[in-house]
């Protein structure tokens, strides 16, 4: 059976070739963007969440997939964007749309000095240090209760001004997926640009070398910090939208574990491909929904347990059998068929 599938799937892929791939993307795009017109509110909300995580994971496509830096603090920048935007709107009465932009900018402003300090380090230690920084941010938000509301959260965040004739959740859905498309275009352009090639040359995860890049006249530190800031701005923007979507935020959402989860999404989907980020976010959010809602009812046991096991199993299986992520599956099958 396995063998037959190994022949049939590549044969179909061959038959339709690249055109098939584009067709799939086009159909998926149309289905997705018309979602609020025909799907239930539950599904629309789920895909809004997928969109937010896609933006967060896209940051890692730049940072890890392109530049080879394993960073685990995307959730912190998500939080910086969320809290900045929310606090500006709640405490100072700044219009939410303006606050949203400030949230994204604030994440960039935090990332600049932090990146300069952390990215001097090399290798896997960066992962450990960024994770620690994320934990520090979590403590900070929790402690500064008089400003941030502490562990109980920040309430009554104003909504964005939505046009009439549309529910707020549909409006936010379009805002989020607009942001996804913007980040996707930015990411793909950056990958193909001169900057992208410079980053690729110093990607230690893809056979590059920081020393060689430096010798070739690439200011390695400059590029690394730059891409770190871009990833942070992505996350900050997503966080700001999240704050005005939920109208309540609490520190737990932006903890170290969320950073790890975002990394899992990027890895499972394929960290070297922008589409991989979206695929990974869809898969992990899908797993979360299925296992949170269905498994405890069918199998019994605590809510929240099954999805933890599923994240772990999916991550390990991906790394062992498809190290380049699910997005590399069609190419792999085709290659095997040709061999």
């Amino acid at each position: 059976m396995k063998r037959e599938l190994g022949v049939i799937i590549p044969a179909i892929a061959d038959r339709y070739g690249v055109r098939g791939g584009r067709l799939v993307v086009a159909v998926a795009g149309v289905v997705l963007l018309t979602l609020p017109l025909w799907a239930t509110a539950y599904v629309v909300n789920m895909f809004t969440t997928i969109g937010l995580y896609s933006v967060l994971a896209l940051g890692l496509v730049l940072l890890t997939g392109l530049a080879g830096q394993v960073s685990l603090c995307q959730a912190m920048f998500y939080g910086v964007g969320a809290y900045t935007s929310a606090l500006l709107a709640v405490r100072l009465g700044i219009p939410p749309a303006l606050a949203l932009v400030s949230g994204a900018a604030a994440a960039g402003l935090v990332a600049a000095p932090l990146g300069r300090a952390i990215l001097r380090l090399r290798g896997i230690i960066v992962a450990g240090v960024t994770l620690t920084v994320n934990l520090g941010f979590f403590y900070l938000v929790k402690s500064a209760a008089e400003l941030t509301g502490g562990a109980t959260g920040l309430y009554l965040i104003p909504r964005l001004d939505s046009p009439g004739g549309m529910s707020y959740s549909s409006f936010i859905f379009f805002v989020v997926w607009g942001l996804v498309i913007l980040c996707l275009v930015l990411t793909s352009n950056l990958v193909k640009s001169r900057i992208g090639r410079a980053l690729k040359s110093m990607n230690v995860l893809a056979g590059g070398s920081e020393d060689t890049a430096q010798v070739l006249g690439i200011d390695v530190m400059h590029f690394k910090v730059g891409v770190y800031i871009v990833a942070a701005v992505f996350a900050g923007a997503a966080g700001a939208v999240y704050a005005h979507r939920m109208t309540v935020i609490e520190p737990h959402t932006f903890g170290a574990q969320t950073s790890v989860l975002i990394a899992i999404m990027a890895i499972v989907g394929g960290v070297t491909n922008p589409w991989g980020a979206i695929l990974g976010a869809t898969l992990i959010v899908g797993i979360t929904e299925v296992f949170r809602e269905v498994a405890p009812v069918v199998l019994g046991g605590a809510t929240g347990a099954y999805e933890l096991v599923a994240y772990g199993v999916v991550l390990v299986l991906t790394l062992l059998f498809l190290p380049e992520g699910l997005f590399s599956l069609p190419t792999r099958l085709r290659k095997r068929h040709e061999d």
Partner: protein
Amino acid sequence: MEIATVLQSLISGLTLGCIYAALGLGLFVVYGVTRVLNLAQGEFVMLGGMLTVSFVSLGVPLAPAIVLAVCTTMLSGIFLYRFIIYPARNASASTLAFLTVGFAFAIEGITLLVWGWEYRSLTNFLGSSSIHLWGATIFGQAPWVVGMTVLMVVGLFFFFGHTMIGKALRACADEPLGARSVGINIEKMALLSFVLASGLGAVAGATITPLTMTAYNIGIPLTIKGLLAAFVGGIHRPVGVILGGLLVGFAEALSAGLVPTGYHDVMALGLLLAVFLARPRGLLPAHGVAE
């Protein structure tokens, strides 16, 4: 400031420091031999505590319960190496680290399924009770925690310095190719390092449970503290890791004693990160050539 407050901070600093040093030693054993950053070390500690609580509640006396818990945790360590790390042993450092993350998530989920989310505790070993000293309190379990870490350190120094198999492990750490060429089975040594780390973690978990309690989700924060200890002190030498652990412990306890509001966690973490970024190779870097 009162003497009692300072004394109390020093006592809790030492206790916490010993916990983090024990975690750091587990990280060191695996990283030293295999270059894998084991982000599941905290899960071994969690498992050790949870399993001990379960065996005790089944009516097993404490000492055999700890032995059983340690053995069971070691089995999970063997599983981690044999079925997750070994098949990908030639992959990049980040792939290997994320494999341990996957294992950590799965263990956390399984623990939640089996034991639920409640915090669990044990009574103090041999019923030792709190000691009062110039206005400060030493919790009954604290001397056990310190003693456990001291024993671990002495044991590891003896093992690495004076036994054939310990020296073989060190050889793998220093020069894998050379070790292989003199007939050391590197895969076996890597497996041993995971067994050792999971065993150390489980012993630590059983010992700290009466003091700190245990639950399914304590693993990741503990791993992060252990990482901090290893980074600040220097992950390449056990002395560095122990020093790092004590520093993390004292930084936390002193800032908790001195900073009145809830900012002590942030202060301690910020201080330690600053120390690390100023000395990125650790306070006690590796001997000889730089990386």
